[in-house]
């Protein structure tokens, strides 16, 4: 009887286990396996190449350039995007008019399709007929007009700013939720003790928001390092290699060069780097908490 009950339980979870195995575990193992082979994705035969794919990555300048560029976008997202998200969340947490309206508005960009956002911003930033250059001209700032996405001096920063615009809503939502968990009594007590707005922020808001800030920072780093669709839509990695990011390079290896093994090795390298970044963050957070 007990055996039947156990069997029944296993049968009920079997579909989930099968689906998880097929769509998660097997591909995960396959990626590790393929990284040691040279394979074009079509032929049934794969050539074992050992660690040569990983060795090639070490000397792949474009790959490391893409890593650096991804890091640059992440740095802008960590500072500019999160500062904006925090400020807006802080403003909406206060008693201002139409705060619910703002909450909805600020959360619209993250729910939009990245392809749509990319295409709309491409249109706004277009050097020929883009609305941004049009406004700059109207304001008499003609010397600032440029082809934002084709100019190597501005392309990367421009896509980083658009990425921040697209992503700040998530940070806003988490910061707002965090701010709302702070008991109002603490602010009242601070006021009774003579604290002004800055002192309240420094001694009440900031310390209690540290766990949320850490969470948002982790999500920002992991999300931004993997940015792909937006850049693919806006610049395709160009001009030259100026907006290439790791995921675009993996795609180029797989689709452009038909080098599935090398693409898998790049994927593993990238995954390991992300794990290392997360581990460092974990250590820093642990130290901060202590």
């Amino acid at each position, binding site marked *: 009887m007990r055996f039947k009950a156990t069997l029944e339980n296993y049968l009920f979870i079997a579909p989930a286990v099968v689906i998880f195995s097929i769509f998660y575990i097997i591909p995960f193992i396959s990626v590790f396996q393929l990284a040691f082979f040279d394979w074009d994705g079509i032929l049934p035969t794969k050539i074992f190449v050992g660690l040569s794919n990983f060795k090639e990555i070490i000397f792949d300048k474009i790959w490391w350039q893409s890593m650096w560029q991804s890091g640059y976008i992440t740095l802008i997202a960590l500072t500019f995007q999160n500062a904006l998200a925090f400020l807006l969340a802080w403003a909406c947490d206060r008693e201002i008019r139409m705060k619910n309206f703002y909450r909805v508005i600020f959360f619209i960009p993250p729910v939009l399709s990245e392809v749509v956002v990319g295409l709309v911003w491409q249109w706004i930033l277009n050097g020929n007929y883009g609305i941004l250059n049009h406004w700059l001209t109207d304001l008499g700032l003609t010397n600032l007009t440029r082809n934002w996405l084709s100019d190597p001096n501005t*392309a990367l920063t421009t896509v980083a700013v658009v990425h921040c615009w697209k992503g700040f809503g998530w940070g806003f939502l988490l910061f707002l939720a965090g701010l709302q968990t702070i008991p109002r009594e603490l602010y009242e007590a601070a006021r009774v003790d003579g604290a002004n707005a800055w002192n309240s922020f420094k001694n009440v808001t900031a310390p209690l928001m540290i766990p949320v800030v850490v969470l948002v920072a982790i999500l920002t780093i992991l999300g931004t390092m993997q940015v792909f669709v937006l850049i693919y839509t806006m610049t395709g990695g160009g001009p030259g*290699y100026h907006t290439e990011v790791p995921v675009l390079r993996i795609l180029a290896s797989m689709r452009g060069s038909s080098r599935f093994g090398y693409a898998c090795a790049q994927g593993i390298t990238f995954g390991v780097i992300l794990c290392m970044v997360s581990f460092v963050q974990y250590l820093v957070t642990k130290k901060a908490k202590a």
Partner: protein
Amino acid sequence: MKRKNLSAFLGVMLLVLSAGCASKSESGKSITVWHWMTDREPAFRELAARYEAKTGIKVAFELYAPSDAYSQKVRAAAQGANLPDIFGILGEKRDFSSFIKAGFILDLTPYMSEENSKWKNSFFAKALAVNEFAEGNSYGITPGIYGVPIDIMTIEMLYNKSLFKQLGLNPNRPPQTFEEFLDIGPKLKAAKLEGLVSGWGEIWMIDCLANNYAFNIMGKDKVIATIKGEVPYTDPDWIKVLSLFKQMQESGLLANGLVTMVNKTAEQLFANEKAVFAFNGSWCVNVYKGMNSTLDYGAFLAPKASDKFPMAVWGGAGSSFMVNARSRNKEEAVKFLRWLTDAPQQAYLAEATNNLPANKESINKIPEVMATFAKAMDYATHPNLWGVSEFSPVIEAFDKGIQSIVIGEKTPEQVAAEVQKIKERELAKKR
């Protein structure tokens, strides 16, 4: 109660599994075709209906777009040996050869050779050559014809006749030489018009123009020798090819933001008469018609930069279909493709989709611009016709290098040196 639950669960699982198997058993007289051509879908469906009425064989055209997604689907299906009866391959000839080596593509030579090669002779030779592997090919494929061209494609220069008049140029005489072409640059700047637009953000279109000029400057043999590794990219002729892009940029011929421009944007700019020149494929006739039916434009060969060799045009088979060698319906599939490429069906496809038919017998009644594109088949060249393929990282470095030249970041000499370095690395790996 528990037993009931268990029975019900097993029953549902059985149903789900049996439903999954049902479609497999249903074969009979039906053919499945996978394609990516959104613009041709209605015409394909109409032709499928006509074929069914004629033969009783149902043809299901399944559209998977965009082409990137389609390409991945075909590769995934190949890995799982789930390819349909008929499908197309998007990619380089190297990929095509891998599909053949893996046994996924039927050799159509015996069918093409029937009745004194009647079927074979109905096509433009270069359209068929794209699907052909010659004797002693470098891919190690048994010589033969492995695909059926459905339509042909050439990529040419286009110019706006109205804007030509506005610039004080003869609307019936596009530039013939590269110098004449460059001379138009300052006029464009003065008139505040955009010059050449194209999908150079999708880098393969840069490759098309660069190879056209490579053929014009050094000839086919030297281009092939470069791919074989016998001539370096640092050769003066290659530097001359790269320098043309620098000259075009400096003269003001290239549109603002060209290096990240996708072809759709380029088509919009040209159709809306904001750009004087476009570098686009023959499919554009249909696109421009949809965007601006009154657009007055003409097509011409890219202005030659040298008199040593003829100017080449990137082209050949626009899209081709292959028959799955493992399909149980391969005989029916071949018969359907033969019917599809007969003159009446090809004429219907050309009329309905404004694409150039692959069957040369059906090319008589097409508009003037399309006829210009069709005539360009005489000068057509394509990597799939060369018998050798360049390494993908070399192509990428070459095309991205041209982007760097256009944005003034690198000189042609620097780009040539970088490309050659990558070429040597790839050659060393092959050894």
